[in-house]
């Protein structure tokens, strides 16, 4: 699977939300989509609020 970025996650999330909002989603599919959306939201939130030590180290190592 392609590596998830904030941008790709948000784009996918927007697509899911629009699909849900259209009101034409099958209930069985809905559960699946809500689960995926929740994963994406958690991923994005983490990007915004949790420090990636690895990245900070890469930046610190630039001389």
């Amino acid at each position, binding site marked *: 699977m392609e590596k998830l970025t*904030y*941008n790709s996650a*948000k784009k996918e*999330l*927007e697509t*899911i*939300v629009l699909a*849900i*909002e259209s*009101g034409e*989603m099958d*209930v069985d599919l*809905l559960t699946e989509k*809500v689960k995926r*959306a929740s994963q994406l*939201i958690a991923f*994005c*939130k983490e*990007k*915004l*609020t*949790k*420090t990636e030590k690895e*990245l*900070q180290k*890469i*930046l*610190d190592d*630039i001389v």
Partner: protein
Amino acid sequence: MFDKSLSLTELNYRVRDAIRDHLPDTYWIRAETSDVRPNRNGHCYLEFIEKDPARQAIVAKARGVIWSGVFQMLSVYFEQETGQPFTSGINVLVRVSVDFHELYGYSLSVTDIDPSFTLGEIARQRQLVLKQLEEEGVLTLNKELTLPEPANRIAVISSPTAAGYEDFRDQLLKNQARLVFYTKLFPAIMQGDRSEGSVIAALEKIFHYKELFDAVAIIRGGGATSDLSCFDSYGVAVHVAQFPLPVVSGIGHERDVTVLDMVAHTRAKTPTAVAEFFINDGWKTFSDLIGLQDRMVSASEAIAMKEQNLLFSLSKEVVHQSMRLLQKETAGTQQVTATMGHALKQHLLQQSHLIEKREQFVQMVSPQNVLRRGYTLTLKDGKIVTSMQDLGVDDTIETRFRDGISVSRITGLRTSDNSQEKKQS
């Protein structure tokens, strides 16, 4: 020859006197400052230069001095009016007297300054640089960049020792929203002659690592206002304008907008304001995400609710329908029961009628009744006689009537024509 000769001192005196005689007044002159150096006694020494506008080559030069008494007032006044200190590299309009000293030579001593000329010159210079950038088609390039989402990896160009840099980091890393930021300092000299090259070098280094960053912050600590010419220079501006990452400026200048501010993606006044800009942007990114989450929750809740309602009304319908069916069935059963009862009754009634009729018939045909209607019963030896064949002359027979029995002796027998029939009946 020797008698007519002059000592250097004597010549210099003559030059001095000639200058005093021919240039006795003070004169307003336009020139660029250079090598400005206030000394410990409060005097300020400098060079006045004039450049050829096309070639930028120095075409005239004069030493200058601002005596302590004048410089104290003049420097404060100049800084108040222009927002920048009296320093090298600025175009000034100054009133000077022309001096000649036998030992130190030609110099101009400053008695007054017109800051509005400098302001005009700065503005004019800025306009020239902006016009050039526009002609080259790069003026708005950085402004046209979209700040990535999230913009939390920030390359910082600053003097490492500046208080402004610490303020920036503190503000950013201790933000209330607890958003995460990454900063990397690319140190640069932020004022003086070497600042332009230093800032450009820092930009070039960041360019090398551009994939690791979302934006660049060029910040300079507050404190006393200082030379901004670096941020009005074409060199810095053209690099910033074409930089592939959005540049946010915060060079601590309240008064006016430098060329850097004009070409930067976003202009903030101070380093703290730059930090606030990134925090607000991060908060907006976060809010957008929460907005999406809310939309998803409410939309899926709406679907769930709809489904639930549908289910509920379906189940209600089921209950309703089954109730109806049940009622119908019950009613039907009752009907059937009733019908059955009725039918049974009818049947019974019919049966009983039939029985009654049969009784009547039976009664009607009972010997008693038959006798009553005038028929008689003939018995011989206690047995009913139904045929002539059973009788003979002189037999004694009993004839039973309704109301009694007669005993007779047979005197004659006559067989009837239809005895056959009689026999059978």
